């Protein structure tokens, strides 16, 4: 214990002394005085109605980059997310989560249950608000999904996983909602092309606002409220995909160890 404390203290002192020496030598002085020209280009076009060919029509530059300027990047990140969850499900392919279904009465004490019941609607409201305001304020589909995925985790810890099964939130249902989210993303990717085919003009994949040679963009306003074209659609569908993707993982991870071992042993002896 004393040895670890000594190592930690010496590391802290080394870091502080090195930072002080670097400051005396000028250090990172000019590094943070200005941002790169690329960042300036993003910042100056993120919401500019006077430059309709370049703007993403979103006041939040981060979401504009995530789903417009660098949209394909995020699309393939979503593919990585999809494959990671499919890999985890493949490990549990023969485990039936409904085996050993017990009634209610499990879980933590009454105080924790009541507090959790109060927290759940707040949690849902915050997550949906983050998703729907993703193009206006910091946040978006990924963050909203992570905030919403706290809810199945909380329910599993407080009420046991059988509570989720009684609510019919099984692996199949969560996978179905996740597929709806991913299909929605795929449809939104091709939506500008479908609109352009109907109108007989050109369009790009993942196009948001109108571009050179592609005059059809998605509407930036509905009525008086700013929806930033495709950004709100991407945020909502990504929210669905992330929420239910993590729900599947939490459901599988919370299956009791002896149930999993029994079913896996059965699988081994069958072969």
């Amino acid at each position: 214990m004393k040895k670890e404390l000594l190592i930690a203290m010496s590391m802290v002192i080394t870091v502080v002394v090195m930072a002080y020496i670097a400051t005396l030598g000028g250090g990172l002085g000019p590094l943070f005085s200005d941002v790169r020209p690329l960042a300036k280009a993003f910042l100056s076009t993120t919401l500019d109605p006077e430059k309709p060919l370049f703007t993403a029509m979103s006041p939040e530059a981060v979401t504009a980059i995530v789903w417009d300027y660098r949209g394909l990047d995020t699309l393939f990140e979503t593919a990585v997310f999809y494959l990671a969850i499919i890999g985890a499900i493949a490990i549990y392919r023969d485990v039936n989560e409904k085996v050993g279904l017990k009634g209610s009465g499990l879980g933590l004490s009454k105080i924790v249950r009541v507090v959790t019941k109060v927290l759940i609607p707040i949690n849902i409201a915050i997550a949906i608000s983050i998703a729907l305001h993703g193009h206006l304020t910091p946040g978006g589909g990924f963050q909203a999904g992570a905030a919403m995925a706290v809810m199945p985790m909380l329910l599993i810890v407080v009420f046991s996983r059988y509570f989720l099964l009684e609510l019919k939130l099984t692996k199949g249902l969560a996978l179905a909602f996740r597929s709806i989210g991913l299909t929605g993303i795929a449809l939104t990717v091709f939506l500008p092309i479908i609109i352009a085919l109907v109108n007989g003009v050109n369009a790009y994949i993942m196009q948001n606002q109108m571009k050179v040679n592609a005059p059809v963009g998605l509407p930036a306003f509905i009525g008086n409220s700013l929806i930033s074209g495709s950004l709100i659609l991407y945020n909502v569908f990504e929210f669905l995909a992330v929420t239910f993707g993590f729900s599947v993982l939490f459901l599988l991870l919370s299956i009791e160890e002896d149930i999993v071992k029994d079913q896996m042993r059965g699988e081994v002896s069958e072969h």
Partner: protein
Amino acid sequence: MSTELDIFLANLSLISLIAIIGVSLYGILARPNIVKKIIALTIFTDAANLLAILVGFRRPPSIPPVLLNLEPRATDIAEFSASAVDPLPQALVLTAVVIGMAVNMLIIFIALQVYRLYGTLDARKIRRLRG
């Protein structure tokens, strides 16, 4: 806040992040227990994300990359792009955090399966197992 202190704090964050990356690499390479390797890997991911955010930082007075005016004039946009921090690293980190969590879950599932099949999480023993 004086410029000297700003530069010192920026140096301190950068050098401590490098130190954290060093510690986490030690954990990934030298610790035999797979659970400790996973913990070190998450620390490494977070340090890398923080480093990316730090690269896009701008010295104060700086503002977040959110335009507060929904009907901006040209002067508003010029002022905004002259004082906001770099949004690109933030956009990359935003996805990397959630994707990293999904990949960590996959690694945890694999580690759990390894423990079920081999009865150990020691990387030195798992290496010797065959079949």
